[in-house]
């Protein structure tokens, strides 16, 4: 009897894993690129608001350097995250959630599974031709502000979704994704002069 149950459990286990992707498989699909350049479209669904808040713009992520996040609509604004310091519209500003949260976000954008693993329980699966990762915070501090993160794409991450404990969520989709080898001069300058 015992062995029968063990067999069933084992079968169930193999069946489940057949439908899932391993993290290793996802990691293999991710492009190994230091720089990500893309347009984004962000929709924030808040219970507070009848309509989602929609924003579009472009972003530039360079590992080791930081993140440039430029909003074109509905209002022009720019956020730079350089060396753990946040600059909004050229002025030093408070980093919401602190530096740790900013690092997690950059790891999400670049699909850095190794950096995310210690902080989240990660489930990988396949949906159509895309991989999906479901991230649940391991840590109490983070779980109080964020109930989960989902991200997915064909190669690198093409969208990410942040879920909040109160049911609010935001979805950000990336398009025109490029993985250049180097930054252009103009981009270098944007990183160099935070203010």
């Amino acid at each position: 009897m015992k062995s029968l149950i063990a067999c069933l459990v084992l079968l169930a286990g193999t069946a489940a894993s057949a439908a899932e992707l391993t993290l290793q498989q996802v990691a293999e699909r991710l492009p190994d690129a230091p720089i990500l350049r893309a347009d984004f479209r962000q929709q924030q669904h808040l219970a507070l608001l009848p309509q989602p808040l929609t924003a579009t713009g472009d972003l530039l992520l360079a590992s080791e350097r930081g993140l440039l996040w430029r909003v074109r609509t509905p209002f022009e604004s720019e956020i730079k995250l350089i060396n753990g310091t946040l600059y909004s519209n050229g002025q030093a500003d408070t980093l919401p959630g602190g530096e740790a949260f900013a690092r997690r976000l950059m790891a999400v954008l670049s699909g850095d599974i190794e950096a995310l693993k210690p902080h989240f329980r990660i489930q990988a699966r396949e949906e159509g031709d895309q991989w999906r990762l479901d991230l649940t915070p391991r840590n109490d501090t983070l779980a109080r502000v964020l109930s989960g993160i989902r991200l997915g794409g064909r190669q690198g991450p093409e969208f990410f979704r942040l879920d909040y404990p109160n049911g609010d969520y935001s979805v950000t989709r990336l398009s025109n994704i490029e993985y250049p080898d180097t930054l252009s001069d103009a981009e270098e300058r944007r990183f160099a002069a935070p203010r």
Partner: protein
Amino acid sequence: MPRHVSRGPLLWLLLVGIAVGAGAMKLQGPWLDSNLLSMLPQDPLPANARALAEQHQDRFTDRTLWLVPADNAGGAAAHGRALRAMLKQSGLFSEVGPNLDPARLQQRYQALRPYRFQLLAPRDRQRLENDPQALIDSALARVFGPFGLSGDQWRDDPLFLFEHYLQALAPFTLELEDGLPIATADGRYWALTTATVRAGGFALDRQSPLLSVTNQIQQRWPDSLVTGAPLYTAAGAHSARQEMSTVGLFSLAAVATLFLMLFGGPRPMLLALASVTTGLLCGLAATLWVFGQIHLLGLVFGAGLIGVAVDYSIHFFCQRLDQPGVAPRTLRRHLAAPLALALVSSVLGYLAMGLAAFPGLRQVAVFSAAGLSGAWLTVMLAVPALSGQAPPPPRQRLLARVGRWRRHWPAWCRHHRPVLLLVAAALIATGLWRLTPDDDVRHYQSPPAWLQAQGERIQTLLPRGDSRYFIVHGETPAQWWQREHDLAGELDALESERGALDSYRAISALWQPEGQQQALRQTLGERLYQHPRFADYLRQLGLGEAALARQQQALEDAAGNSLSLERWLAAVNDDSLRGQWGGCDRHGCTSLVQLAGLRDRDTVAALAAPDRGVYFIDRAGAVSAVLATLREHLAWLLLGAYFLSGLVLALARGPTKALRLLGVPALASVVALAALGWLQGGFGLITVLALYLLLGIGIDYAIFFSQPEKRRDAAALAVLLSAATTSLSFGLLSLSATRLVADFGLTLLLGIVAAALIAPLLAAAPRPDPQPGARP
């Protein structure tokens, strides 16, 4: 000797009894002080400010910090828990933590929320004054930024001002895992533990357990890191104690062996040991009685004192050897005058050292004066009566040989005077020229390399703190706040314009007096909530008119809400902020401003203005400077000591003889310094201390040699014996790994050898002789 009980030994027993009793009474508490800082003078602070500064200092002096790593946060927390269990089990720590409730930030949010219109981050307060629209623009950037938005908090805080304020309260919040703070670096997770060494943890018997617990922990977690002043102190005290006890035991063993070999039978040896022990007991008891504690430095010096204290016994027994037929009591009478002279001149010298305004040196002075007096009293009171009737072993051949040396050595020197003087002058001049002052405090403690490396590594893992800080004092709460607020403004300028520091943490930057809280709420209403852009902002984001009305209503409702400093501290519930508030009493109010990443110490320190209640405290950093002052101070006092001793000697023996007597320690000191220069030792505080000991030793030698001719052979033997025992033990010290201790030992070794060689040269010749050659 008749069997009647003489008064001397009884008086001596009484003395020992008093010393033991007095010492024992004081030994109950924490009696050993090994903190280098405590031998320095206190900073001049108002009465209630001192308590705050000391409390803050204790955080540094009593606290240890441990980091244990793992590849994930959960693992690190598990290791951290196990480590804490080991620390608690050791029983050495009064407090092991911190255990942080993950709900803590939530609770702070709830407690401060009703006051969110009165509490703004310093940067937002400035923008509200200068450019309120920038606050709205940055809120827009935040709404559409990458970090996302949760509606619950946004509803209460549409411009994220409260979020900014909470962030300003906790700029470096480590993440929590299972209640343990976790630092992340290099892809590893470090669980942080702080443990406070139990009060009185510096008592001698606690030192080694602290090191052995550390050792166990580092063996179990080879990658774990530890730092903290108690460990440095423990390691320092450990090696110092080992060296001191080696020297102390070695001196005693050398004394014992020589006495056994030369004076026959255990009795003289036991009496010599009794005299030294009585001296040390008296020194310890007097120091504890006067100061309540004894500094490690006092003990170091005390161990060195053995060599001087034994001289009195040596002298007595050498005379006995030379004149076996003379009754001990008669010998004592002969010796009373020279020994008393030796004692008084040395004691005066040591007491001169006590004039320095440094607590540590006063201890040394009291220890030495009481110690020498105790040893002397033993020789005067107890030794003659107890020395027994058995005749001393015949040592005529030895005495004769020493006598030959005593006569031939000066003769030889006189014969070669021109050459000797030339060579000596050249060697001494170049040696002195090579001597460089060395007051680097690091030479006073040489922490083990592993401890230093771990401390440096920890600094890269955690947000950098700084041991330097400001104390701000005001006579009224309002004056205190204004003064601290002004200081904060100046620090802001230094921070942004000159990069003199990374950041600071001041209560006045985060809390304003209640009147100003109300004014701030009003300004917030006028300049921001009634700003047309604010209504636009809410409307464009789809929050609608209702939201605007609700915000304005909430602002109205908050009228009259304000937080007193005490209630604010309770609501914030942060140990480090609470530790910065010294409270108010009849002397006024005090607070502490913490600094981080101080790069330009002098510029920041220049903000201090004691007349406006602003004090910059940099105890550790000032140590080197203080040591240099102290060295100069002591050097002058050394001259004073020579003067006092000279005065006593002149009164007793006349000015010419006094000069000859003083010449022995003076020349020996010059020779020692020159030799130190050649051996590339540093000339520091401890060298000057060694010269004080040398003054006492040199005068002893000189006085022994200046006795009537018939007693000089015995005196020469006494001096050679004394020089042999003391230079042996100080020679050992000169091998110490701690530069300080080595310098101390080396100076004395060289000085004692020089004094023993110079003493016969300067002793007034038995026959009237023309003035001895030119002396520097």
